[in-house]
């Protein structure tokens, strides 16, 4: 276990106004591993994920991704990183309601400058892989929650990212659908070699991970990387 982590955070601190969300969190993620981030609600799990993904800028601490200091990057660079290296699956609401599913999946590719046809062809492949190719022409409002999450997974994976950030990806689904989404997500990420940061409070979901870390009161207990 001596490989250099792909993503490493040390001493992350973040407060929203007077409310501390993270107080000195450490975290490391190796390429290709699936790490569950667990902890009670309000413990700072989501904030940790947002910081790791460069969505939220931490107040203090360092965050290195692939040898680069993320906190020093401009918004445009971090946005570009989100387009190319990261993928996201949230509980709900991450699909653009105006676009069809295939367009939603193709969106990151198109934002990256790909031609529409090529982008949508790849998006269609991914929809098929996640067993939701029948939703291609529909809008997110017209499909079920489980299908929506699979479309979201497809969109997260379509750019062949190195890290997928999943925040309660099954939170709005029933057990069976949740299981299926987790299976598809972890299978697909293992196939493509993408690492997954999986924020969840459900042990059954966390059981799809390779290891887990626990966030409590804004600090991270990471058995493996603890000093």
């Amino acid at each position, binding site marked *: 276990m001596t490989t250099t982590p792909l993503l490493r955070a040390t001493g992350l601190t973040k407060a929203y106004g007077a409310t501390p969300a993270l107080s000195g969190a450490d975290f490391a993620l190796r390429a290709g591993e699936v790490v*569950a981030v667990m902890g*009670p609600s309000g413990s700072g799990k989501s904030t940790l994920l947002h910081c790791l993904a460069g969505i939220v800028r931490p107040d203090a601490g360092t965050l290195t991704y692939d040898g680069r200091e993320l906190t020093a990057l401009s918004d445009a660079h971090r946005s570009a990183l989100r387009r190319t290296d990261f993928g996201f699956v949230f509980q709900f609401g991450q699909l653009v309601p105006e676009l069809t599913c295939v367009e939603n999946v193709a969106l990151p590719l198109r934002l990256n400058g790909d031609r529409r046809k090529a982008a949508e062809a790849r998006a269609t492949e991914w929809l098929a892989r996640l067993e939701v190719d029948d939703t291609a022409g529909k809008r997110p409002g017209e499909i079920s929650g489980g299908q929506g999450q699979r479309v979201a997974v497809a969109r997260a994976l379509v750019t062949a990212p190195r890290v997928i950030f999943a925040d309660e990806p099954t939170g709005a689904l029933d057990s069976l659908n949740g299981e299926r989404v987790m299976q598809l997500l972890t299978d697909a990420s293992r196939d493509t070699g993408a690492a997954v940061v999986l924020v969840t409070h459900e*042990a*059954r979901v966390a*059981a799809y*991970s390779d290891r887990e870390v*626990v966030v*409590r009161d804004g600090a991270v*207990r990471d058995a493996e990387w603890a000093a």
Partner: protein
Amino acid sequence: MSIGHTLLGLLESGPRHGYDLKRAFDERFGHDRPLHYGQVYSTMSRLLRNGLVVVEGIEPGDGPERKRYAITEAGITDVGQWLATPEKPEPYLQSTLYTKVVLALLTGRGAADILDAQRSEHLRLMRELTRRKRDGDLADQLICDHALFHLEADLRWLELTAARLDRLAEEVRR
């Protein structure tokens, strides 16, 4: 559940007489099954034999259990090891876990570590079950799911307990 470790743990906060030990145990852990004096006596003799406790003095008066026990260094180490060892995940183990948490609080050890270690152990098993489920047939899946849901229930309880550790610590130390 190990009565020996429990009684040892109770001694850690200070020497006690045999009847004190029984009362403390019954108050905290023996709601449905109070200890017999015989159990206390035999357990304490075993601990004495193993050098985990010593007899600090004998109270004058009538009755058989007037001995005052104190924990030894070896005894303290033994309690620590026991607490640190996660229980083998299985259904309905909360009584043991609960005892461990309370004892950890009583002895000033970190109860959260116990819970984390236990969660880790639970998850190890759950991962195993999840893998088996993924590769197995429907019967396997259903059997695994049964175990998974029970394990998850344990973990939920653990989380809840962890969230209430502060209040529990207050009540325990009172």
